[in-house]
């Protein structure tokens, strides 16, 4: 467990003694301190401090545990045999079997174990969620910081474009894009990424505007810093926490979006996801046939993962956003 320096330990007193006493400038210290080592020490401490606070949040810890379980399942799915979801290979298995010891979550109308479907689905759902989020964050951060830092006409122009994207009905756009570009995972990821960055850009821009006003930004300008230096050394590190907590919430939204698209039949027909499993169950009239497990299992996964991401997001938000912490 990393040590968190608190209280008097880190309180270093300044020179004590009569004012005006002659001060010798001592020779620089012998111990070798490289800037890189200092940067790493700082990062380690930042992470340690974050974890120290995060651990106190019950909500955040529950969310984290759920996420770790799903992440474990997804990793397991990566190395397991996807053949188990091939209908051609499951002909010998009972169809629409209710949950039992052999089939803990029952089987579907091809006799495929719903548990296998859910496990394979977790891999795809999490992958789509993460990659789409990375795209969202990259576009949102670059656009948001550019607009916030370079105010004026540039900012106004960028923000109008953002507004257009913001009011685009994403579902309609998704349907159109899927129709044009075809239905595969890459397209799904692109659709989600391209439609969800505007809200991130707005958030980042607002945060940039407020960080930009800080005196230390002016101080670095007075030191002769370039715009790039100011952005990378002062603005980005101070906007980062907000981006981080927003990222976690965005993953949840991306997973939901993927499920919705798959459910509407816009997903990749060859990959198993939670959304496509629900879609198939729905088309096969699972409820009418009494095969509730077929619908419930993937739905529960979606709810659990989205809930877990939201919980982690809120917990992170509370740490990085001091105003929330005071409440």
């Amino acid at each position, binding site marked *: 467990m990393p040590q968190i320096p608190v209280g008097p330990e880190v309180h270093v007193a*300044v020179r*004590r003694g*009569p*004012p005006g006493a002659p001060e010798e400038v001592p020779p620089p210290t012998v111990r070798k301190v490289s800037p890189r080592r200092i940067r790493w020490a700082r990062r380690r401490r930042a992470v340690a401090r974050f974890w120290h606070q995060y651990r106190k949040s019950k909500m955040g810890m529950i969310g984290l545990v759920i996420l770790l379980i799903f992440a474990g399942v997804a990793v397991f799915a990566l190395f397991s045999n996807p053949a188990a979801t091939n209908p051609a290979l499951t002909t010998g298995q009972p169809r629409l079997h209710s949950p039992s010891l052999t089939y803990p979550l029952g089987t579907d109308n091809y006799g495929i174990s719903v548990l296998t479907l859910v496990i394979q689905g977790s891999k795809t759902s999490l992958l789509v969620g993460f990659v789409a989020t990375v795209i969202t964050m990259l576009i949102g951060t670059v656009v948001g910081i550019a607009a916030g830092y370079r105010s004026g006409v540039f900012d106004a122009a960028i923000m109008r474009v953002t507004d257009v994207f913001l009011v685009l009905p994403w579902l309609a756009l998704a349907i159109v894009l899927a129709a044009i570009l075809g239905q595969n995972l890459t397209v799904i990821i692109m659709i989600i990424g391209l439609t969800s960055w505007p809200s991130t850009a707005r958030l980042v821009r607002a945060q940039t505007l407020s960080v930009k006003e800080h005196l230390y930004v002016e101080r670095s300008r007075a030191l002769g810093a370039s715009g790039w230096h100011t952005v990378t050394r002062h603005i980005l590190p101070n906007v980062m926490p907000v981006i981080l907590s927003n990222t976690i919430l965005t993953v949840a939204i991306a997973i939901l979006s993927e499920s919705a698209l798959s459910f509407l039949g816009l997903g990749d027909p060859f990959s198993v996801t939670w959304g496509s499993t629900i879609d198939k169950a729905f088309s096969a009239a699972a409820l009418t046939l009494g095969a509730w497990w077929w619908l419930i299992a993937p739905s529960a996964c979606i709810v659990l993962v989205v809930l877990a991401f939201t919980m982690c997001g809120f917990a992170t938000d509370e740490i990085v956003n001091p105003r929330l912490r005071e409440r």
Partner: protein
Amino acid sequence: MSVLSVRDLSVTYQTTGGGVPAVRGVTFDIDRGEVLGLAGESGCGKSTIGAAILRLHAAATKIEGTILLDGENVLEMKPGRLRAARWSGASIVFQGALHALNPVKRVGDQIVEAITTHQLAGDREAKVRAGALLEQVGLPPRRIDDYPHELSGGQKQRIMIAMALACNPSLVIADEPTTALDVIVQAQVLRLMRGLERELGLAMLFITHDLSVLLEVSDRLAIMYAGKIVEEGPAEQVFHHSRHPYTAALAAAFPEIGDIRFRHRPSGLGGDPPDPQDIPPGCSFHPRCPKAFEDCSSVEPHLYPAGDGRRAACLLIEGALASAKDGAR
């Protein structure tokens, strides 16, 4: 009888990291028509005392000792009595006054509200009184219909003073009332407060970090360090002929223009005020004291008579060391 009489007041804030003693046994009196200046650096507990007198603390805060306001112990008052005492017994003028006015209400109505809340008068009567109060604080009565944003900083502070006077309190607590103001406006407000205090025979507790302001308005000065009063006495004496090394260092931060001793010779103390959770043993000032000697780190001084109506908590005062060691035995 004193208007305000504080005895052995201790205030401890409760935090997740344990109790933080902000005030550690403070005793003082303020008479009618007297201004007591309470000075010290940030975190010394001076504002805590102001808030304790009106019991404006969070519920978990531990307050010990007695605070007699017009002979009645504030710490034992029932909620209803306390509310009444809070504006008609003692009122407070804050530093943040510039933001304490409701921006969407006319200033006159805000004064009227202060009066009618305490059921001292009907609406019409209160309005007349509000006009009179404005004149008293040197504002034209027509300002009564202005909104706060139409007033300058100095004028807003005058409105806050008028509100503090609205219910004829016997004690006014002024917590850094002029800190945010410009020097000339500050001088105007200080003169106004001094004049009102004389005219109305108020008792006033004037809290600030700016010792030179206190010299202007107070009759007596009390200097606080780390939750305790370290020197107390007539303002002139304390400022110009300090007996406590800390007071002397503070006073040196406000040099007299023309005094050649200060020319090109800024003087200050090394170090910083102590962490309230980690107060040094003995005299809490000894680690920074230029005159500290061996006993200072082990013997805790109390306030000793130091001549000219003054008391100082320093072992260098004649007889202090002996009496402190006696007391400890």
